[in-house]
């Protein structure tokens, strides 16, 4: 009987091209696992990295073609309106792929040094990237949830990959329990929103509000659902007070993974938040924007205040990453196109700064910690790395002529445009406070008094060095000529298109 029903089932028409990037990544992950487990001799770790980087680049090229199609023919949706094909999904696809390639290259040398399992690392990295891309392009809450889980579960394992370290186990355990907790919030939120609006499809939810207007029947149901979804996503992006996991997890995870969490995973969370709240819930924006504004204020303050008190660079970067989420939230709460493209610009440029920073951290930090004093005299030991790290830190501090300045500028501008002056002022004050922390690391690096003659030789593997230098160049280039990226971010504001 079931078979009989199946034969009557007609699947939705699928436009395969926009899905190709995800498919390439999944296939690459399978290839890595198959080849390394079936091959009689031990396969070199370089194979996994090469396949990961190669598939990431290939997926990027396909995404570029899709982007050109979208520009010619306008945005669309596929798989019965469950997956959106617009500039927004392409933007986050490219962001995720950049993070994937960079993390894979940094991880390559890190894995060798720490004697971790390369094939598993690469496969998980690829699959989490697929999860992030699905999250960013989902037009349906169920699809979005699948993407979120694919991303999260992979990250739980990656956090634990240095299983010999007690901190890594602790980090993974915490991340898993709290992640599951917050996923439950999110899922319950989806259920309630479905109950109130009758659909999990974002297009239908938006349409429901347009027809019903403010005379919605199950208002309480919807609001509770919206609140629970906000909690789930705030957890993913590490916004206070849902950020507690972030410092512990970032500190315990392998440094390249921490960088990946702070870039791709955070960006995916924001992608989901923007698509759901800015687009689907836009009719109720008057209700949720004040909450996001307060969240962003708390996040900014907690990030700055906690970061200043740290002595461990990895933990410092973790709290600073909380603070950066606060800046993006400033743009999200504006609930305008300008605000959204400011958030996109910020996330894109932050990706390179934070991956670069954690790459440097991975070079300097061995298992026994990441104290600031370890960076003393780095400028004399490895001048190029020190210059690059200085660029990342100045960028995160928001110094003019780095991409971080332009990002902060656009974000604060969106709050000013929206006439939420108190938040703009707060964001400026926080940028003033956090400058201390970044400057502290910088002055340690450039301290000439320190005797570095006895310091152990600091080896910089080629792949990591390459990523660090490229990330630094991108940070400077988008600080000096940001126009192309600003335009890309402007064209990438999400739109909803019903399934055809």
């Amino acid at each position, binding site marked *: 009987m079931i078979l009989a029903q199946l034969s009557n089932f007609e699947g939705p028409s699928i436009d395969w091209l926009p899905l190709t990037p995800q498919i390439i990544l999944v296939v690459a992950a399978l290839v890595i696992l198959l080849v390394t487990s079936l091959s009689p001799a031990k396969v070199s770790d370089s194979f996994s990295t090469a396949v990961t980087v190669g598939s990431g680049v290939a997926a990027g090229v396909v995404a570029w073609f899709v982007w050109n199609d979208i520009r010619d023919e306008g945005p669309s949706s596929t798989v019965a309106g469950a997956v959106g094909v617009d500039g927004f999904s392409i933007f986050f696809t490219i962001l995720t792929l950049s993070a994937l390639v960079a993390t894979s290259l940094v991880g390559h040398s890190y894995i060798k040094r720490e004697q971790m399992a390369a094939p598993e690392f690469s496969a998980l990295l690829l699959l989490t990237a697929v999860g992030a891309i699905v999250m960013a392009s989902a037009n349906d809450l169920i699809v979005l949830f699948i993407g979120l889980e694919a991303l999260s579960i992979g990250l739980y394992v990656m956090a634990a990959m240095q299983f010999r370290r007690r901190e890594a186990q602790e980090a993974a355990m915490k991340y898993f329990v709290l992640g599951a907790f917050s996923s439950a919030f999110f899922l319950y939120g989806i259920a309630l929103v479905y109950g109130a609006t009758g659909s999990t499809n974002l297009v239908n939810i938006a349409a429901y509000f347009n027809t019903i207007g403010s005379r919605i029947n199950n208002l309480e149901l919807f609001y509770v659902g919206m609140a629970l979804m906000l909690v789930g996503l705030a957890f993913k992006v590490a916004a206070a007070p849902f950020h*507690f996991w972030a410092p512990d997890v970032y500190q315990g995870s392998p440094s390249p993974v921490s960088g990946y969490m702070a870039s791709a995973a955070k960006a995916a969370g924001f992608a989901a938040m923007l698509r759901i709240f800015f687009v689907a819930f836009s009719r109720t924006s008057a*209700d949720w924007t004040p909450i996001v504004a307060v969240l962003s204020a708390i996040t900014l303050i907690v990030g700055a205040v*906690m970061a200043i008190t740290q002595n461990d660079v990895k933990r410092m970067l973790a709290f600073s990453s909380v603070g950066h989420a606060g800046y993006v939230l400033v743009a999200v709460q504006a609930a305008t196109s300008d605000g959204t493209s400011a958030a996109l610009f910020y996330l894109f440029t932050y990706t390179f700064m934070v991956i670069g920073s954690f790459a440097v951290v991975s070079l300097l930090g061995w298992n026994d910690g990441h104290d600031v004093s370890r960076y003393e005299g780095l400028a004399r030991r490895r001048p190029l790395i020190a210059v690059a790290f200085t660029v990342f830190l100045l960028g995160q501090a928001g110094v003019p002529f780095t991409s971080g300045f332009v990002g902060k500028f656009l974000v604060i501008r969106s709050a000013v445009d929206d006439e939420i002056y108190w938040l703009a002022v707060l964001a400026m004050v926080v940028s003033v406070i956090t400058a201390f922390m970044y400057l502290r690391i910088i002055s340690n690096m450039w301290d000439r008094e320190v005797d570095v003659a006895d310091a152990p030789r600091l080896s910089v593997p080629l792949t990591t060095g390459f990523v660090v230098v490229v990330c630094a160049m991108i940070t400077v280039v988008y600080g000096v000529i940001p126009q192309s990226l600003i335009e890309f971010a402007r064209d990438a504001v999400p739109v909803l298109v019903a399934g055809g």
Partner: protein
Amino acid sequence: MLSLVWLIPALPLAGFVFLLVAGRSIGEPNAGWIATAVSGSSFVATLVVFAGLLERDGENRIFEQVLFDWLPVGSLEVEAGFLVDPLSITMALFITGVGSLIHLYSIGYMHGDENYSKFFVYLNLFLFSMLMLVLGNNLVITFLGWEGVGACSYFLVSFWHTRESAATAGKKAFVTNRVGDWGFMLATFLLWTSIGTITYVDIGPAAGSLTNTTATAIALLFLVAAAGKSAQLPLYVWLPDAMEGPTPVSAMVHAATMVTSGVYLLVRMNPILTDNAQTVIAVVGVATALFAALAAVAQHDIKKVLAYSTVSQLGFMFLAIGSGAYVAAIFHVITHAFFKALLFLGSGSVIHGMQDEQDMRKMGALRKAMPLTAATFIVGWLAIAGVPPFAGFWSKDEILLAAWEVDGIGKGLWAVGLFTALLTAYYMSRQVFLVFFGEARWNDNRPQGQPEVVPHESSWTMVLPLGVLAVAAMVGGAINLPIFEEWLVLEHFLEPVFEYGRLHHFESTTATKVSLAVVAVIAGLVGMAIAAAAWLQKRIPTDRLEPKFLENAMYVDATYAKIVGGPGQKSFDAIAAGDQKLVDGAVNGAGRLVQKIGLLIQPGQSGMLRQYAIGIALGGLAIVVWLLSAAL
């Protein structure tokens, strides 16, 4: 020729990069000579651009060079570009001119320092930032320079950061300046939201559309920024401490150039300075002038006297701005750059000759041992004391006249200004008498076993800049003599800049002008006479002239420390005592406070899973309750 403007900041930038890479290997003294050479070339480039500007007519003396569109976002266009107009070129001229002399002086002064080349790296970077600040064609570029000079000042103050006090002072300068920076950012954003532009040439025409309230608010925020950078009440506290830096730094950064950038900013923003804002600026300025002059009266450290004197003179410049006398403000910036740089470099020569002694009570009779230093220092003294025809007389006189003519509170401003001028003459005379006259006290209370101090004159690289600056301090007033209309060269040159501002026009009769000038000169002479009676002839008991209350600058700084830094006066020093590294321990003052809050909420970050989960649950509950209560 005007298109060469990019060269002016590019030269010091190139010097900075070169010395950063190769400074250590070329070492002393070549690193110093290279830095001096790029600084001198930058001065020549400025002269060339200046000549190009002079070829044009008065109204057409504006030239913009846009390097590229930097932030083309919607309605806001931010370019990376330079603006050459009378104001910016005047600033650039004395910055590169005085800057080059100080570079030259530093070659001798820093002799033997283990970080010799690093010093010149910072000095060139500072010069670059300062030139960006004045030559930028919009507020964002100026802000870039503004941040740059702040960072360099911080690096240079704590240059000898093995000295604890130097490290603390560096941090204090940084913290106080960040307060001002915040005002700058806020003002820039407000200006942009109100008139849609932050480019200088567009601000003037658009400023008319601002409501009076908005314009005043923006102007006052810029005043916060300027007060931080230019050490005005209540943000002046960092400048006296900044004297921990090497003396050439005090001369260049903390007397001639950086501290005047607040004056530049307000003068540049003249189209938005409303009457109310002007009144506030004038009051802040005159209060600072008086306060700092009182503090200068009782200092023992030769550089501290000059530091408080700088704060006081900056107060005069703010008084000029507040009175609408923008030309007088810039005039005083220039003459002050001459005589204060001269005095600082002179004091550096004294400190050098006295083998690093800074306490004036251990000096005396140095005019015989250091005749050239003494002669030039005396020129600086006469200039700052307002004795005609030295440079300081002309600019200070113009400020007092402008204050006199202000409606309402003008007479009061003038009276306070006059009294401050008297104090200025007094404390500078006291300094000169204590250091160069009287009996030699070089070896009083010398601990057993220490070698005897034998003062000696400094090398030619140090004395030559003193000579040049002394000549400038003598005749510098000539650029703006109020004797014939056409002798007001600076005023006519700068006038086009103030097309949209509330520029003060002098209206007093010649008789009033002359009598006010005579009163001012008399006040100066009275101050000098009191000092002579007390410190030269010992006819007044001197111990009562140095009350502890004034020596500690009325305890303002200590009070700040108490309020900001938690219990006790120690707070500002606490971290420096704990760690001697630059910013280690994060910050003091404001930063310290934040850190304490952080430690308070730290227990929340306990590592306990249950607590984290409760945090999430409570946060979620709060959002649910909020949404429901707002919606229902």
